[in-house]
C-alpha cells in the first residue's frame, strides 16, 4: 500500500491468482467491492457523474491530495454512461503539442494502472493504425507524426506494404473506391477493458474513504452571490447540491457528466460551448483472432479493433443531429458495413451481434473544457466528445489537483473554458473527429 494520507479504512481483498484459488476452494463469496452508505449532509467535495472521469477524479483527490471526505453522485449506476459504451481505444498521437502532451500522460497512467489499482485492466498495447485515403489525409498524418516525434511520442507514417505487414487483412490494393495510400502507425496505442477501469477506480477510491452514491440524481446546484437568478452565474460561489436524496453542503462541485454536462452546468448558471450528440457502435460475433492492431479510417468514418474474445468492435463518427436520445438507426449499420467491407472485404460473412450508442459532449474545437468556471468552486471536466475514455486517468489527476490546490495545472491550462473568450482554441479536429 502506497502512502495514502489519512482516511484509510480497510484493506480491500487483494486480487491475485493465490486469492482466486483460495476463495474458489473455500467457496465463500467475495466481499462487496464498494460500500453503500447513507448520504451525509456535508462533504469537502462532490463529484457529479460516476463514470471513469468522476471516479478517477475522486481517486486522485484522495490519493494525491488526502481529500477523502468526497462523494461521487450518479443518477444511474457507476459506469452506466459513456464509460461502458466507448470502444476502449487508447492512444496519444494527437495533432497539437498541448493535446499530445496531455494524452501521452494519460497513456503513461494507463500503463501503470493495473499495478496502481490492483486490478487487471487488460491493457493490450497492440499498436494503432490511422489510414490515409487521400493526399490531404496523408499530409495530416505526416504533420501528426512530426508533432508526436517532437514530443517524444512514437508515431511514424508507413506505406501500403508496411501496412500489409502489420495488418494483413486490410485491402491495400488500388481497387477500392478509397485506396489506402499510407497510415500513421502509433505502436503505443491499444485497447483497455473499460469496465475494469471504472471498477478499479471505484474500488480504490472506496477503500480510501470516498463515498459512491448511485441512483442519486442532482436536481440543482446551490449557489450564492452570482449575477443570475438564485445567486447562480458569474461571480457567485457554490454552497451545495440538491439531490433526490436531500441537500448536501459542499464548497467544491466537479461536473464530470459528459453528455449531460450542459444540463448540470446550467444548474450553476454556466453556459458551455457544448452540444450533445449520440455516437453509435457495434460488435460482431467472435471469430479467431486475425486483426493484431487498432485500425482507424477518418475518411470512411470507422474504427475497428478485435477484442481478446475475438469480436470485432466498430465505432463511427457522432450522429449529425444533436439529441439526448440513444436509439440506434439502420443507416448507421448500413453505412458502417459498407465502410468496413471497403477496408476488409474478407469479413463480409461475419454477422453483427448488437449495436448501441452513447452520448458525446462535443465542443467546437474537438478539445475538452477543463478547470475553473466563473462560479467559484464549480469545476468542469467536460467536452469529452469522442475521446473521453483515453483521457480519463490524466483528467482525474489534473482536475483533482485543480480542485485541491485552487490553481490550474499547466497540462490543462490550454483547455480552460476562457479560451473561447480569448479565441485561443485548441483545434484537434484533424486528429479527433473520427480518430480513435
Amino acid at each position, binding site marked *: 500500500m502506497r502512502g495514502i494520507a489519512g482516511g484509510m479504512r480497510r484493506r480491500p481483498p487483494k486480487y491475485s491468482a493465490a486469492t482466486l484459488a483460495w476463495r474458489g476452494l473455500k467457496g465463500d463469496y467475495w466481499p462487496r467491492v464498494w460500500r453503500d452508505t447513507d448520504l451525509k449532509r456535508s462533504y469537502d467535495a462532490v463529484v457529479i457523474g460516476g463514470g471513469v472521469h468522476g471516479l478517477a477524479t475522486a481517486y486522485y483527490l484522495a490519493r494525491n491530495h488526502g481529500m477523502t471526505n468526497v462523494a461521487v453522485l450518479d443518477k444511474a449506476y457507476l459506469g452506466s454512461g459513456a464509460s461502458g459504451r466507448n470502444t476502449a481505444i487508447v492512444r496519444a498521437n494527437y495533432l497539437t503539442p498541448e493535446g499530445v502532451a496531455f494524452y501521452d500522460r494519460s497513456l503513461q497512467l494507463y500503463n501503470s494502472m493495473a499495478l496502481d489499482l490492483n486490478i487487471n485492466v487488460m491493457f493490450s498495447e497492440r499498436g494503432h493504425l490511422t489510414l490515409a485515403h487521400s493526399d490531404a489525409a496523408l499530409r495530416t498524418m505526416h504533420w501528426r507524426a512530426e508533432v508526436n516525434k517532437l514530443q517524444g511520442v512514437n508515431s511514424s507514417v508507413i506505406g501500403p506494404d508496411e501496412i500489409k505487414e502489420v495488418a494483413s487483412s486490410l485491402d491495400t490494393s488500388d481497387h477500392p473506391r478509397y485506396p489506402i495510400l499510407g497510415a500513421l502507425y502509433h505502436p503505443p496505442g491499444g485497447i483497455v477493458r473499460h469496465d475494469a477501469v471504472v471498477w478499479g477506480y471505484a474500488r480504490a477510491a472506496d477503500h480510501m474513504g470516498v463515498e459512491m452514491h448511485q441512483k442519486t440524481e442532482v436536481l440543482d446546484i446551490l449557489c450564492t452571490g452570482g449575477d443570475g437568478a438564485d445567486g447562480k452565474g458569474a461571480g457567485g460561489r457554490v454552497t451545495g447540491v440538491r439531490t433526490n436524496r436531500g441537500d448536501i453542503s459542499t464548497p467544491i462541485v466537479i461536473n464530470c457528466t459528459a453528455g*449531460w454536462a*450542459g*444540463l448540470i452546468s*446550467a444548474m450553476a448558471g454556466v*453556459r*458551455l*460551448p*457544448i*452540444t*450533445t450528440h449520440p455516437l453509435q457502435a457495434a460488435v460482431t460475433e467472435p471469430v479467431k483472432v486475425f486483426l493484431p492492431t487498432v485500425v482507424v479510417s477518418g475518411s470512411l468514418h470507422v474504427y475497428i479493433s478485435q477484442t481478446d474474445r475475438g469480436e470485432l468492435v466498430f465505432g463511427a463518427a457522432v450522429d*449529425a*443531429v*444533436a*439529441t*439526448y*436520445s440513444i*436509439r440506434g*438507426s*439502420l*443507416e448507421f449499420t448500413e453505412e458502417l458495413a459498407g465502410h468496413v467491407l471497403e477496408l476488409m472485404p474478407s469479413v463480409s460473412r461475419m454477422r453483427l451481434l448488437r449495436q448501441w450508442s452513447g452520448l458525446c459532449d462535443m465542443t*467546437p474545437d474537438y478539445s475538452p473544457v477543463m478547470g475553473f468556471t466563473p462560479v467559484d468552486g464549480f469545476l468542469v471536466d467536460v467536452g469529452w466528445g469522442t475521446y473521453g475514455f483515453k483521457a480519463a486517468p490524466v483528467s482525474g489527476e489534473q482536475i483533482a489537483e485543480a480542485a485541491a490546490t485552487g490553481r490550474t495545472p499547466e497540462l490543462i491550462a490550454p483547455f480552460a473554458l476562457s479560451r*473561447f*473568450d480569448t479565441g485561443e482554441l485548441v483545434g484537434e479536429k484533424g486528429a479527433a473527429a473520427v480518430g480513435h
Partner: protein
Amino acid sequence: MLLVPCPNCGPRNSADLRYGGESHARPDPATAAPLQWRGYLYLRDNPAGWLRETWYCRSGCRRWFTLERNTATNEFRDPPQPGDKRGAKA
C-alpha cells in the same frame, strides 16, 4: 431514422437534410461586444427538451428553415407549412 417535416417537401429522412443546430438571434454587428459574439459563436443551451433549430433541405427544396424538436424524444412540434413565412430564413 429521423423523419424531418420539411415545410416544402414534406417528411424527409434526416440524411437528406443538413442539421444547422440551435437557432439564436445574431448580435447587431454595430453594437455587439466581443463577449456577445463569443456567446453567439460558441455557447449553446443544449437542452434536453424543446429546442428551436435550423435545418437545410439539401436534396429537396434547398431552403433553410427552423423547426422545434424535443431533443429527448426527437418529436417535432407544429412544423411550418408551405407558404408559411414563420419558419423561413431570409
